[in-house]
Structures are given as C-alpha cells and as structure tokens.
C-alpha cells in the first residue's frame, strides 16, 4: 500500500486521524518516521502532519516554560530564556539533526536516543497530549512508563518549571564519539537548594533501563542534605540501584552499572 500524507491545520483533527488509523504516524522532524520509511517499515502507511502554530510555540518568559512539541533543538539553542536546556539540546545529533529533530519526537526515541527527554524527566516536566477526548497533561514519568501505548497519541507540548538557580540543573551525556555520539549513559540532575539543603532532588538517567528512568536511591541520598563530598559519594554509590540497563552496541549492562556512579559523582562535583 502506498504512503498517504495527511496534513491538518488543527492538532485536534490530526490527533483524531492518528488515533483512528493503526498505520498512521505523526511526522515531526522526520528523524524517526522518515528513517523508518527509508528502511522499509511497511507498518506505516499514513503520515499525519499538523500545521497548528501552537505546536511550534515557545513560552519561556515566566517561571514555567512551555515548549511546543514541534520545536526543534536548534530553536531551543537560539532561545536565551531556555539556557538551562542548551546543554541537552546541544547533545542531540549534529547540526542538521538539531535543525530537524523536535522535543516531541525525542519523547519517543528509543535507546540509545532520547537524551533530551532525560533532562525533561529530571525537570519533572508535564507532557500535554491530544487524545480523542481533548487534551490532557501527563507527568513525564507516567508518559514514559506507558510510551509503548502512546504511538496513537499526539503530543502538543511539554512544560516545566525553570530551575531556580543555574547550577541547580546539570546534565551530561557520556558518548564514545566526540563531539557527536550515541549515549552510553545520560545523566541529568535537578537539585533545588533551600538554604543549604537540597529539596526535591531529581536524578534522571538515560540508557539505564528500557526507557529513561529516575535514580530514586540517589535522590534519597541527596534529599535534605547539602551537596558536600560525603553526600555526593553516597549518591554516587546509590546511582545504579533500581536501574535495569541492557547490553547494546555502545556498552554492556555491566559497564553501565560500573560507571553510572562515577559519572554522577563527577557531574555533582563539577569535575570534567
């Protein structure tokens, strides 16, 4: 069956088309769907697009930012108000991929991709999706846990609080190839500080499980403490707890477990 392209002006219509057709995929930047088509994925026979401007809108002036699902990484890099997201945006692909790839698509990118989503998970983002019955917000953690079932839904935007202090949010992607390489592991940490104490620590990891996950044991080791050497050591020691990494071409599960604590320690202590 040939491929049909359906373009809608409203995201609601696009979402309806997506949910009514098992062979339909939403085309964002093309880095996932076009690749699948090029490689002969015949399960896709309808491409759905939406020209709704809301999908490419950035609201970043206030303390809460909302980024349309169709916003590219290059646009994030061009937005001064999104400086806290520049490191994760820059870690995606090369320049061409950053000009094409979108925040919404990244939510669906399997290992070893999906690094931007690691940052969003640490930032406790909300994912706004359009379903058959209108739009609703899903916490990103819940969204990721059910990702396999989300292919028929249309993501409209993601939103999150800006980190209070610039060094409260840290991100690092460990890749074999520089400057552009697939993730061996990816780490993001949001450590809001109240007084001298960390309150509401969130550590997110990529490539440490089938989807991006939180390192809850490490978070517990940080919560309510000051970020000193002992705390960092405790968090690093707990980093692998509760993770379920796999083997792939970039590294083994064993290796990932061995280094996740090392890199978390370096990230938290500001070492190269």
């Amino acid at each position: 069956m040939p491929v049909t392209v359906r373009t809608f002006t409203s995201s609601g219509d696009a979402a309806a088309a997506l949910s009514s057709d098992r062979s339909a995929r939403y085309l964002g930047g093309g880095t996932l769907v076009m690749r699948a088509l090029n490689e002969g994925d015949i399960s896709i026979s309808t491409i759905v697009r939406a020209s709704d401007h809301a999908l490419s809108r950035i609201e970043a002036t206030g303390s809460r930012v909302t980024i349309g699902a169709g916003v590219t990484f290059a646009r994030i890099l061009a937005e001064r108000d999104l400086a806290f997201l520049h490191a994760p945006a820059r870690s995606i692909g090369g320049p061409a991929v950053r000009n094409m790839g979108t925040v919404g698509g990244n939510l669906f990118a399997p290992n070893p991709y999906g690094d931007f989503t690691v940052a969003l998970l640490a930032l406790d983002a909300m994912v706004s999706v359009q379903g058959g019955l209108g739009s609703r917000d899903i916490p990103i953690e819940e969204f990721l846990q059910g990702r396999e079932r989300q292919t028929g839904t249309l993501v409209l935007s993601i939103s999150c609080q800006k980190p209070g202090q610039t060094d409260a949010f840290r991100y690092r992607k460990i890749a074999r190839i520089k400057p552009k390489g697939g993730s061996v592991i990816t780490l993001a940490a949001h450590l809001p500080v109240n007084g001298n104490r960390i309150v509401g620590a969130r550590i997110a990891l990529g490539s440490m499980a089938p989807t991006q996950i939180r390192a809850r044991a490490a978070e517990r080791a940080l919560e309510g403490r000051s970020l000193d050497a002992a705390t960092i050591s405790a968090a690093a020691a707990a980093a692998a707890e509760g993770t379920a990494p796999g083997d792939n071409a970039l590294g083994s599960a064993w290796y990932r477990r061995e280094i996740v604590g090392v890199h978390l320690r370096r990230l938290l202590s500001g070492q190269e």
Partner: protein
Amino acid sequence: MAKTALQFRHNGRDVAIFVDGGTNLLVALRELIGDMTPKFGCGQGGCGACSVLVDGELHLSCLTLAETVAGRSVETLDGIKDGPNLHPLQRAFADNFAAQCGYCTPGMLMAAKALLDRNPSPSRDEVVEAISGNICRCTGYEPIINAVLAAASGGRARA
C-alpha cells in the same frame, strides 16, 4: 499511485514536480530533478552525505519529507558556485586535499557552508561541531577541518 504536486526553489530556480506519498527530499532532488550532488549514505540521518540547506538551515534531505519544502528554498552543492567560479569552500577543500573518495564531500561542504554563512570566523571547535553530523571514512577529518578554517575569514588566526 496518487501523486502530489510540489513547487519549491532549487538553487535559486523554481521547480515543480510530482511526488509519491512518502517520497523524501533526497529522492526528489536526485531522481525527479536530476541534481546528483546530494548522496545517499544511510537513509538514517547518521552520515550527512545528503545534507542540503533548506531556507539556509542545514537539513538531511533523506529524512525530509519532500512535500514539507513546498514554497521553500533548497540549496545543494550544485548551487554554491558563483557562475563558473568555485565557492571559497570548494577551493579550500581542493587546496587542502580534503577529499579522497569524494562521496562525503558534497554533504561536508554544505555543513561547512551552513557554519560559515552564520559564523564567518569559527574556531576549530566550532568547525568540529559543524561537521560532526557528517561521516568521512577516508581522511581522518584533519584536512577537512583545516580546509574549513582556511576558507573562513580570520579562521587561521583563531585556530
């Protein structure tokens, strides 16, 4: 098979073609327009051999649905010469022996052009970043980096 009419600017010239559903821009450029300068290297977004500029931005033509460039401007290596004269990047690639098999060269040149169009005097690190989505299996990258720096105004000084 239903075809869709598509018009866009190709290297400064208006073109109109009919594409099948799902056709990517690389196929449209090569097979429907006859511009063979963008190359197929992977179809996955991993090699950059198909790189073109869409409205001045570096894009991977193999991952671009052709009909999304309707009304936009697409520039390929075939369009960067100034009449019979080579673009400074083309001259610099030649002078620096920055091509061996030549297959990655069109994509490399477009990635380099995308950089220099925005940043005429990049640092070495900026050049490295700019070509990081393009695979070269022959040169070891060093001559390519040197060529881009040589083409950039003031590039040598900052390298």
